[in-house]
Structure formats: C-alpha cells, structure tokens
C-alpha cells in the first residue's frame, strides 16, 4: 500500500470575485522513501495541493471533493483533532521563506523545544536535548550557542536548516518542502538539497518537493508531477518527464530553459500569459497558449492517458499520435468532435 494516496482532490477558494478552482481533480500516490516533485508556475496549484494534504488552507479555501489517505487513514473530513496529530508527527512542512517562518521574538531554541514538546511526550530537558541533536543532524555548528540566538542572528541558509530540524524533530513519514531553496543562493541551495537528500536516505522518509526549478527536480526527484491551472497535465518518473515529455506544456517548459546550446540564439518561450483561474476555458487550460492546439483542445479537456507503466499525460496530441500509428481506437463520438484533427 502506498504511504500517501491522493484521489480526485479538489480545492477551491471562495472569493468575492467567484470560485477559484485552485486544485482540480488531482490524484497521485507516494511510496515510502520516495521523492516526488511537483512543478508548475505560480498559480498552478502546486502549493495548494500541499496545503490541502496538511489541511492548512487560508480561511476562504476549502477541500470540496476527493480523498487523501495516509497509510490507509482518510484525512479529508477527519476533523481538526486527527489533523493536529498528523501535522508535525506524520507529515511536516517547510516553507519557502525561512525569513518569515520563524518567530523573530523568540530564540531558536525556544521555538524548537516548543515544537518538540507539542508533538512528543518529552519533558523540557529531554526536548532540549532532542533540539540540540536535531541541529547537529542538519549541520548547524555550535548548536548550544545557536539555541540561545534569535532568528535575525542567522543567515538564510542557517534559518532553513533550523526549519528542517524543526520539521524532522518528530521523524515524520512525509516531509513537504514548499520551494525550500528558492530564497537561497545557489551555493547554499546546493548545501540544503544535499542535506535533504542525505536525511531522506538516513531516515527513510518520503519527500514532496514543490518547486518551479526544473534543475532542482532533476537533481532530487524520483517522480514528477507537472501542474498547470490546478490540474495535473503530466506525471511520471523523472527520466520519462525529462527525456520523453508528452504534454505540450511540459515540452514548452523544457524548451524555454536556457542551456549551454542556446547562447547566441533565441529561446523558445511559451507564448501568452498564465491563465486567469476565474475565467477558465472549457477545454484544455493550456490550449490558449499551445502552439499545437487543435479544435478539439479548445472545447474538450483531454483525459489522462497512460503512455507507459511509468508515465501518464493528459494531452490530445497523444491521442492523435495513437490514432495515427493505430495503437488507439477512438469511439465515434470523439472522432466526430475531433474532426480532422484526430484523423
């Protein structure tokens, strides 16, 4: 059984301007000891997916459908009492901005001890020992001295280490890292990523890595989910996603990154602007920006299609390809709607 099973998760924000479907029918599983990457641009729903799992949505946000099962236990609708026990103990989260995730008015030590005492039956002395042990684990030098210092006395990389120490203090099964290195310099990013990889191996936890940086994904992740406008457009193993992308958005993303070969040439950007979640098109959300959009893409959303055992994508191009090489047969209704596009 998978450690975490997310099925048809739907989360919406109810704003004055209307309902924003931030997460729309997201399903995936996560096994013990695996690193799952969720990539997408701002507003794609990658963070909201994570917040929905933890049930730490802002006031206007609500899970309106689907299920989240941890070790077989249903979390959606389980109630705050159950979730309090899950958060920190079973699933921990670290946020993007280590500058604002710590309380500036308390020492690092006080914040660590508070978190440990809240989640484990340790007394203050034991909690302090555990805090020092955790700081050592994340390579903070002179942990005893650091415990007495305030967040402002630490650099960004050091604060992110403290956040990781806090998140791992109760040995969670899953660590959700929401853009953990975006605010850091590359050399510090390399240190933090290496640390996370090392801890993941030592402690055998699973990691959900939310990022917009495909480089971080390539380095860290076993499996990858690509999100656009609240939906999963493609998911599979890292190798499949990078070397055999089968959704036009993923292909566009890969093409638009500068590499050694692009110097002196134009990049191939994705045209247009990101989608307005309040005015979602009826068909594929990426169709308005897609160079290869067909008639059917404008009106109908492609269903998720299994490309091979390790790879699935929701793009009409795959259906078209399948029809052309004879591996897929489509029903007459789809054929009529697809018109000439699908052959």
């Amino acid at each position, binding site marked *: 059984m998978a450690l975490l099973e997310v099925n048809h998760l739907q989360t919406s924000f109810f704003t004055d301007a209307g309902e924003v479907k931030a997460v729309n029918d997201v399903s995936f599983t996560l096994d013990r000891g695996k690193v799952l990457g969720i990539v997408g*641009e*701002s507003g794609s729903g990658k963070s909201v997916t994570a917040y929905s799992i933890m049930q730490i949505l802002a006031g206007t946000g609500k899970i309106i459908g689907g299920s989240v099962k941890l070790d077989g236990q249903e979390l959606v609708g389980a109630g705050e009492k159950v979730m309090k026990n899950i958060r920190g103990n079973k699933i921990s989260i670290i946020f993007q901005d280590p500058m604002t995730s710590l309380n500036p008015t308390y020492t690092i030590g006080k914040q660590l001890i508070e978190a440990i005492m809240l989640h484990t039956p340790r007394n203050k002395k034991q909690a302090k020992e555990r805090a020092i042990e955790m700081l050592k684990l994340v390579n903070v030098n002179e942990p005893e001295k650091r415990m007495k210092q305030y967040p402002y006395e630490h*650099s*960004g*990389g*050091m604060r992110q280490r403290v956040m990781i120490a806090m998140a791992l203090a109760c040995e969670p099964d899953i660590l959700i890292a929401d853009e953990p290195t975006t605010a850091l*310099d*590359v*050399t*510090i*990013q*390399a*240190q933090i*990523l*290496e640390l996370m990889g090392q801890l993941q191996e030592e402690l055998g936890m699973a990691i959900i890595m939310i990022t*917009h*940086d*495909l*480089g*971080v*994904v*390539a*380095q860290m992740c076993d499996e990858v989910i690509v999100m656009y406008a609240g939906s999963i457009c493609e998911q599979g193993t*890292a*190798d499949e996603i*990078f*070397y055999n992308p089968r959704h036009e958005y993923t292909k*566009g*993303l*890969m093409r*638009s*990154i*500068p*590499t*050694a070969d*692009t*110097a*002196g040439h*134009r*990049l*191939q*950007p*994705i*045209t247009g*602007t*990101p989608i307005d979640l309040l005015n979602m098109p009826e068909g594929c959300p990426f169709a308005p*920006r897609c160079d290869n959009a067909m008639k059917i893409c404008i009106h109908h959303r492609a269903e998720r299609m299994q490309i091979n055992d390790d790879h699935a994508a929701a793009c009409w191009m795959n259906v078209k390809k399948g029809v052309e090489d004879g591996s897929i047969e489509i029903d007459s209704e789809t054929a009529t709607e697809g018109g000439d596009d699908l052959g």
Partner: protein
Amino acid sequence: MTLAEKKPLIEVKDLKEYFMINTGIFRSKPLKAVDGVSFSINKGETLGLVGESGCGKTTVGRTLLHLYKPTGGEIWYDGKQIKSKADIREFRKKATMVFQDPYSSLNPRMTVADIIGEPLDVHKLCASKSERQERILELMGYVGLNSEHAARYAHEFSGGQRQRIGIARSLAVNPDFIVCDEPVSALDVSIQAQVINMFDELQEKLGLTYLFIAHDLLVVRHISDRIAVMYLGKMVELAPANEIYDRPLHPYSKSLLSAVPVPDPKIARANQRIALTGDIPSPLNAPSGCPFRTRCKYATEACAESMPEFREVSTGHFVACHRIDEIND
C-alpha cells in the same frame, strides 16, 4: 547578439562604495559593499555580473549610474569621465536601469502612459503633448504592449507585462546603456524566456549595451558575452561567457558553477558538486587578504596577508587568486 565593437562604452576603474554603519552610539564602521572593482563594457556588448546575495553586484550597478555617490574610483562613459552634476544629468539620458521587482518599481497611482512618459518629462525630451503620446506608443510597441494598455494602471498587469512596462520606461530617453538588475528573477519560467528574448531583440534593434546582473547562472550564460564573478565586494574572475563555464579558474567560480542545478536528471545525478562550507562572511568583518580564503580549501597563509592581484591569465580572462597556477594543473 551583435558582434561587439571593440570600443569600451563604459569603463569603471577601482570603483569603491562604502556605507557607514552605526556600531555604537558614537561609533560607525564602513561596510565595504564594493571594494575596488574595475571593468569595461564594449559598445553593443552584454556583461553578466553574478555572485551571491550580499556580494555587491547590485551596488555596482547602482553606483555606476550614480544612484549612490561613489566613495572612490572613476566612471568613464564613451571616453569622458562622469564627475560633475551636469555630467551625471547628461549621463542619465544615456544610461538607465531596469529593476528586479516589477511589483514595487512601478507607481500604482500612475497610468502606464505616465510611467513610461515620466523620463520624457524629466529630461524635457518632447516638445508637444502629441509628440509625447506618439513616443510613448512607440515605446510600448517595442516591448509588445498594445496602445489600449496605455490608460491602465500597473496592478492590472501580470508580472511579465509589468516588467515590459519597466523596460519601456528605461528605453524612453533613448539610452545606449542599460543596467538590468535581476530583471527576470521574479518571473515564471515560461514568461522569463519571453522577456530574455525581448532583451536580445532590443539589443539588436537599438544597439544597446547591457550590464546584466543576475543570480540565475543559466540565464546569465545565455544572454552575456562576458561574465564577471563577484565575491564580498571584489571581482574574482572575468572572462568570456563560454570560457568561464567551461574552464572557471577561481575556486569560488568553480564551486558557484558546480552548484547550479542542471535540468537534466542524468547529468544532475552524475554531477560532482564542489561543496562550499559555511556562509558568506559579513562584509562588515571581511577577512584580511583574499575575501574568499575562509571558505577556500586551497587557502594558505599568503592568502591571509594580501589581496591577490586581478590579473589577465589568458586573453580576456582575468582572475584574482594567489594560487591560480598551482590549483589549475
């Protein structure tokens, strides 16, 4: 990219920018944000400037445009030193800036037309209202905005479009030189490529020269002809873009470049990172001698004694390291 003419448009000699920081009631101490940096940028060329936060790269850009008064050193533009107030005023018609944050660098109470038109008013570049309006529309055309956008406010635009407005504003005075301070860092990957292409196109069309400051090393390699690496207020290496990526010589450049996550799983897994331990020291307590020595595995006593000279080791490749010959065998 056009072939850069071999004539320097911008020359910076031993530029210094110290900020006085209060350390006690009657005590203060200089924070050496930029400490003796020299470089030149040829006409039509893009010089990339990289380094970690706090290394002084933004301060170099700002001091270069006299947004901060330089503590020391000389700035030459087109063969003329910029010194007096009149010089600076003239210089600002030729050199402008694009800022990092497209959200805070545009006045929310001004329309797009007024934001772009403000430099025209400041420098009195348009004789009549209709000329001003025409020029604004021309500038908006350069950056791919429609005339219907002119009467709108900045909050109505996405990050990428706001950055276009900022670029149109920087082009208003018809500059030769633009300091681009992290212009694409705040943008999504898919939008980033659009804006990078626009910088390239504008350079070709208008013959612009760029100082391109960024921390994203993949972006910098793509756009730059030459790249300079800064560390703690000093320049440690300067070389043609491909050369610095293929053959970095300074130990700091080596670890900086190896730390860049490559968007290719097989290469990323095989990549041997040259890990740096610790954090960048505070510029208030910069180490003696070579600023990098506290994190450098090759550091010796000599490194603590004197700052290594920034010297040319091969054509156009400058490095400041005492042990350059020993560690690069």
